[in-house]
């Protein structure tokens, strides 16, 4: 298998359907499975919560919750009971989906190919390297931003934001364009940042995997295989930081955008 085919094979989704009505089964399956994992573990934990001194796992979960609610307290003005659970959901889910990036790139696709008996079986394990997942979350956040913008500022206040922001009433057409770009760029940058980072990270893993896979022929494997392992370990450790950072950034930006939606614009 050639280098190009190898990478293309790994970056293709297991899809059914045509045109817009295409469903990426692997993306949906893995992300829903991880969501189910979150819910399952939460329910298990919920059954044996200790009010007194929390032990082990509960302590860790409380630490994460404390961290998230601290971020919300620091960044979010006012009160909204939805923000903290939303931020927590994003942090946990995005982190878990990103974490799939650290599973050896060939392991799960190979298992799937062995189980199904189909050597051409596609399985893209990391849902966040699918633009649909990243954009689904950023668009949901965008929807919430619009909703709270109108709820807090009122419909007229929301329109006023487009008309008189950022340059006052003498630049109304220009203001509309500027605010539109500003608002649309929020979900776009939010989703694309996550997607881009994870996609690039996955690509680097694939390239590292290629070192041992295609370059190593015969006696050369003695040199290339350890190099691959070393590079893989290095990128893995670095990527562990990246996935945490990306989920953290997604969470914080969500809080910030929703916070901006809750703030009254100052009149110009």
């Amino acid at each position, binding site marked *: 298998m050639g280098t190009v085919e190898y990478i293309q094979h790994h*970056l*293709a*989704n297991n899809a059914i*359907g045509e*045109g*817009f*009505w*295409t*469903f*990426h089964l692997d*993306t*949906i399956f893995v*992300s*829903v499975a991880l*969501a189910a994992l*979150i*819910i399952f573990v*939460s*329910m298990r*934990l*919920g059954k044996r*919560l200790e*009010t*007194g001194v929390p032990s082990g796992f*509960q302590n860790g*979960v*409380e630490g994460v*919750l*404390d961290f998230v*609610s601290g971020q919300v307290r620091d960044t979010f003005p006012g009160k909204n009971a*939805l923000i*903290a*659970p*939303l931020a*927590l*959901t994003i942090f*946990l*889910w995005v982190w878990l989906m990103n974490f799939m990036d650290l599973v050896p790139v060939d392991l799960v696709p190979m298992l799937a190919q062995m189980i199904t008996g189909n050597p051409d079986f596609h399985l893209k394990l990391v*849902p966040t390297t*699918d*633009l*649909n*997942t990243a*954009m*689904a*979350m950023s*668009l*949901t956040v965008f929807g919430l931003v619009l909703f709270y913008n109108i709820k807090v500022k009122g419909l007229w206040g929301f329109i006023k934001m487009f008309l008189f922001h950022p340059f006052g009433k003498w630049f109304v057409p220009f203001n509309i364009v500027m605010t539109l770009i500003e608002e649309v760029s929020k979900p776009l940058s939010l989703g694309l940042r996550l997607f881009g980072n994870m996609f690039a990270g996955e690509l680097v893993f694939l390239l590292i995997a290629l070192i041992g896979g295609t370059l190593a022929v015969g006696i050369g494997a003695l040199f290339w295989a350890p190099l691959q392992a070393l590079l893989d370990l290095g990128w893995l450790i670095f990527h562990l930081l990246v996935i945490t950072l990306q989920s953290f950034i997604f969470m914080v930006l969500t809080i910030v955008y929703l916070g901006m939606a809750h703030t009254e614009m100052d009149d110009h």
Partner: protein
Amino acid sequence: MSINATLLIQIIAFVLLIWFVNKVLWGPISKLMEERQKRIADGLSAAEKGKRELEMAEKRAKEVLKDAKEQAQNIIGQAEKRANEIVDDAKTKAQEEADRVRAGAQAELAQEVAAAREQLRSEVAQLAVAGAGQILAIEIDAAKHQDLLDRLVKQI
């Protein structure tokens, strides 16, 4: 690798997951953490209150002890005073009694001495008269020299 209907599924999954996380993870645990925070705060304030009460009780105990000591001191002082008084009283009474007894005895003694002297005097006068009468039986008339005899009696 383009936007397609997967997006819709992911939006639904995301919204459902937010709901679930709020329901089974965020809700119970944040409630629990709030309860714990409240319990700790209550415990701390109770400890603070207990400490204050202990301080007050100690202060009160000290005051009570001081009062008791003062009272005891007073009582001891009074008792000593009273004892002294009683002793003094007894002394005075004893002195008076002794004086009275001595005065009575002296008066009796004086009376007896006087009576004895009187008796002696009259006996001596009779003796003197008898003696003188025997010596001067003739010359001296008792009636005639009564004056002389009386003077003699008085001189004795």
